[in-house]
């Protein structure tokens, strides 16, 4: 079994209204040292599989097909082997 940790973030040039609003809120709460905030998604998938390579390929496919929206988002992931 593998645990896939997937990070989906907005592409750099895409506006992040949510991140902006949170950044402003942090400033208002006096965390003035915060320079910028970007908010994305973090997903944990437990996946049955023999070896990291094949699982990795599948995860990549899931990301590009469903989990991330390639028009505005980018993704990356890590695989960790776990005990069943």
């Amino acid at each position, binding site marked *: 079994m593998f645990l896939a940790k997937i990070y989906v973030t907005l592409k750099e040039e895409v*506006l992040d209204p949510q991140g902006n609003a949170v950044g402003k809120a942090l400033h208002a709460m006096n965390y003035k040292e915060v320079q910028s905030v970007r908010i994305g998604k973090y997903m944990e998938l437990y996946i049955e599989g023999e070896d990291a390579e094949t699982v990795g390929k599948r995860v990549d496919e899931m990301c590009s097909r469903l989990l991330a929206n390639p028009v505005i988002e980018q993704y990356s992931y890590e695989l960790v082997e776990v005990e069943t």
Partner: protein
Amino acid sequence: MKSETWKEMGLRKNEYELIKKILGREPNYLELGMFAVMWSEHCSYKNSKKALKMFPTKGERVICGPGENAGAVDIGNGKAVVFKVESHNHPSAIEPFQGAATGVGGIIRDILCMGARPIALLNSLRFGRLDSPRVRYLFNGVVSGIAWYGNCMGIPTVGGEVYFNKSYEGNPLVNAMCIGILNRDDLTRGKAEGVGNPVMLVGARTGRDGIHGATFASEELSSESESKRPSVQVGDPFMEKLLLEACLEVTRAGYIVGMQDLGAAGITGATSETASRAGLGMEIDVNRVPLREKGMTPYEIMLSESQERMLVIPQKGKEKEVEKVFKKWDLEAVVIGYVTSDGILRVKNGSKVEAEIPARALTEMCPVYSPEKKEPSYLKEAESFDWRKLPIPEDMNKVLIDLLSSPSIASKEWVYRQYDHMVRINTAVRPGSDAAVLRIKGTNKAIAASMDGNGKYCYLDPRMGGSIAVAEAARNVVCAGARPIALTDCLNFGNPEKPEIYWQFEQVIKGMSEAAEALGTPVISGNVSFYNESERGAIYPTPIVGMVGLIEDISHIRSQGFKEEGDLIFLLGKTEPELGASMYLEVVHGLETGRVPVLDLKKEKAVQDLCLEAIRTNLIKSAHDCSEGGLAVALAESCISGNIGADINLVKENLELPELLFGETQSRIIVTVDKNKKEDMLSLAEKFGVPTSLIGEVGGRELKIKVSEFSDEIINLSIAKMEKAWRGAIECLML
């Protein structure tokens, strides 16, 4: 300048020559870019302008018509309503959620810059068929995008329509309409009046959004900035909500002389249009524009289409007050220039002049074209199609259920339950009836609104289809108890450079104009969307009409559901032997052909006048027009909406059963009347010259339809069964 840069920017040779003549010199790169966007079809309407002149635009109530950011009509009590529709088809095809959301954001700003408070949103949507996963993805994304933006803004989405047809498979249509209200005196224009008045940019910061518009490759734009340009814009409804409140506050305070949203062509569009409307000029400094990204060039700044921005022109000396209001709402407001007397739009970068163009040249001097036109060849064939050669199904119960569960006819609850349609507590008739009704607080009045259009009709007979779109929208509003007062339209077509498409375009406008004239509903605003084509060809020509009606007394509000056991059911208007272009042919036989039902505008007007008079004199308790699916579907909808059955007896005469039950003859309305008022209804109908028949009675838990010459009931279906088919259809397909 590199030769033929103008070509890459989408300008024609004659246009480039004209630009040189206007300027008396070669334009520089920025100037050329500004001309290119402003003279693009999207901004200049150069291919459609002539045809659009056919529309009737004047009327007693019209305060301002096409040409402003939105049209405005007087509704009495010192108040006016402002409305307009706009398309966001292409962005929604690429990214349905954000594309649709930013479409809603855009149309709201159009209403806002008239100084009006937006009080309602509607939308008209077209998709391919729901059995395709891609279509389901688009449909789901578009609906949730519309929901997100409107809900977050606190503007109720009260109505609209959705059709599914394979002609839209590669090209979904997303048309959004917004209605606003204001005191007549507060009406703001998109005019930069008063030489010396400051020009302020407010709201979101400017980024490299949507610069491609009219231009692509070039030397001046580094490949780096090219790659940094997002292809899709992300909406920020929270920002727009703040913008809305702040803009209304400065308007009401009387600080400003003009206001304009930044839409297509960004700062270039807003500055040149406001200056040109006032016959004045403007000088701005791109250096002062608050930017979201580093290293933006004047070209990028002038052409950026970043969302959630407005141009505000305050009276000189009121800058500080305006700034204060925006600050209160946590928004930036920056003076970027001032109004000048010389008629020139001058763009500076600090002390360096980057562009100098007569403002009028950008907005008024684009050449106008009359594209070639040609009647398409398929029309004759369609017209001669004879449905009587087709077999007639045995089981009409099944046909009715199939029609009720076909996605284009089925309940759109799956859609509108995702929209907050009640916020602002004005929605007296919610989505799900013929038209939505909004009360006008502080008066005894209400307005009704509906969006309609039938692409298949327009494909098979553009002129008739155009007329029907207007007539049906008006009829829907009438069924709610409202007198139609004006309309807005969105014309969705394929590539106008194809002669067949342009022919359809002109015919549709002709048909719409005739109906608008006959029904007394001037066209006060609108939008054109061309190039809705994919490899599979053009979409059906799809004009969408957004109709607004006025209810003088809230006691006249009506909805489509049957009300009370024992009420009499009348059909206003007469069913003709018509079945061409119907949903029946589409659902039962998979055919989209035949002769479109004939609309007689005199009859239409008479039916509408009769219905309104009968509502005004309290004869009518419910009203529902017959549209797609014909009489049987309309009866089923009234049963389901009212949660009560009906016993119907129809006379066959010269009609075949499918024509009688499912034909889509125009100018028909089903109404219910108290059982003691039969004669009153009939004599009123006679007075208006409308053939009217008593067809049954409200009651029971079934819809039962008997037809003369047949001993058995042709239709006998429980409400529960019909409701399940109708209400559950889309949800079931979307699971």
